[in-house]
């Protein structure tokens, strides 16, 4: 059980194992009812408590899981997510900009009022 020493991979491995058990059932189902959707949402909320998203591409690589049908899964590192930031310039105008999850937001549009 190599994933026991890899916290991210461990969680993903569990999830994939779970997926392989239930995906066939899932695929055969018609559209879930509102009640079923709510139950599924509650399940994701519960599972999320035990899942930590990797932060870097190196950490993410440890989460790679290969399934028997050839499917390969990997958790996305937060460094590839987007942050959305805002800043007011001297004229009070808003500038909304993005950066990744591990960097201080870049305010490229603002330029300096004073240099």
């Amino acid at each position: 059980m190599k994933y026991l020493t890899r916290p991210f991979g461990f969680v993903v491995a569990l999830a994939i194992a779970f997926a392989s058990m239930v995906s066939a059932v899932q695929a055969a189902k018609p559209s879930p009812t509102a009640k079923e959707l709510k139950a599924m949402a509650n399940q994701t909320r519960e599972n999320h408590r035990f899942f930590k998203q990797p932060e870097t591409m190196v950490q993410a690589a440890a989460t790679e899981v290969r399934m028997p049908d050839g499917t390969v899964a990997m958790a996305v590192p937060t460094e590839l997510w987007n942050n959305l930031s805002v800043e007011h310039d001297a004229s009070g105008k808003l500038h909304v900009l993005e950066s990744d999850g591990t960097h201080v937001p870049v305010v490229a549009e603002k330029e300096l009022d004073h240099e």
Partner: protein
Amino acid sequence: MNKLALTTALSLALAATFAQAAEIVPVNFDDPGEGYNDPTPALPVGGNPGTTIGEQRLIVAQFAADLWGSVLQSDVPVFVGAQFNPLGANVLGSAGATFVFRNFPGAGVANTWYSSALADALAGEDLQPGFIDINSQFSSDFTFYLGLDGNTPAGQVNFLDVVMHEFGHGLGFQNFENEAAGTFLSGIPDIYSTFTFDNSTGKRWTQMTVAERQASALNFGKVIFDGPSAVAGAALTLGPRTAFRVVAPLAIAGDLEFGTASFGPAATPSNFAGMVVLASPANGCNTLDNPAAIAGNIAIIDRGTCAFALKAANAQAAGASAVIIANNTTANPPPGLGGSDPTIAIPTVSVTQADGALLKGALPGVQVGLVVDPSKLQGADDAGRPRLFMPNPVQPGSSGSHYDSAMLPNALMEPAINATLFSAFNIDITPNLLHDTGWSLNNGNAKIGDCDTTIDVVDAAGIIVGANVQATSNLCLSKASNRGSYQSCMDNYKDGLLAAGLITGKQGGKMMSCAAKLGK
């Protein structure tokens, strides 16, 4: 190809879909009393009937989910983690796909990453049951405008636009590449990068070496998205290109990239044309000592030492008709010029350091002007393909996974959200790009229950009136205490759509006919 033909071609391309509207489900991760559960009382605002801050936030998140869910088709629910947290100064929020998959049943391109929600849609099954597909969190320290009507007060940020933008990333408007390093996640390309093409090298990102991709990520203005749906949509949505054109001398004639200023009048072809003269002093921070040369001409001034607005004021005092600020770093695109001075009555633009040197090196005799070129699109290359945002230096998290900020009209997936967006009704060429990556779009009409309203869910130009009808119907239904109050809610909504010219009277009648069949 004219617009009608393009519309037809795109409509055909969007046809032949068999899946149902996607069910996008925000999953509230907040604890009691905070974030989406914030009990602070609030007055209904801009069509958002919530009576607490938390409820209003949830309504916006659900509305965004319903808009995207109406536009995209999938048989598999998409679960989106939703949470408010203190995120630090100036940070509004973050979002992204939680998992990627490759080589799954239904994958369009082998050995290529797809974001979780898209992979599920293509596979027709949940590849990761029990886990969210997208995660999103937004700042609890920031006062968003929580209305759904787009009437955002000055100084506030429209939360719906922010959520629509971030959900767009999570649904697949993103690559899985570190632009600064040129490396793909685990060395495997992603479907978005399959359509990322560099005009300078003639290569797609998936055809490049790591070093080539690293260089391409800095190639501002030259990297485009060449998916056929996005290209067709660009022709329908983008306006004619306004170019900064060097007319003389012929040796340097051509179009240059330029930035705009937050002070003074906007530069236009009518107020920005003439001969260029070098300011003295070159940084323009003091009274110019060559007013005789400057008067009636365009002053070129180096960036640095003092405020942009002061440089413009000094040039104006010397009689300049306009100002060009030449950057003092190698960054590209040319900077946006911040600051304010209500006395400035001449336009100011910026150019890169390299282009500034080009202009200054050819003096005297440099003639420039802004021109509107109706044969080209603003924010697209000369072949009409939408540009992607590739600034130099790299802006991690912004580079690559956005449309270029040069687009006009502004697009939802530009790196800087601005007040001209109205994503409740218009998401421009964002669905087109998602369609290129594999998403099926809903090419039908909005339905209330099983009743066809005859209103397009999404058209070829990203207008989503029908999606808004479905999202609003869901909202009215969720808040209505009885059939009458639901119909009253929809009737008020219909009147607004008619007044805005978004639907015809016949469509309004059909919509209300459908609404009459539904109720509690």
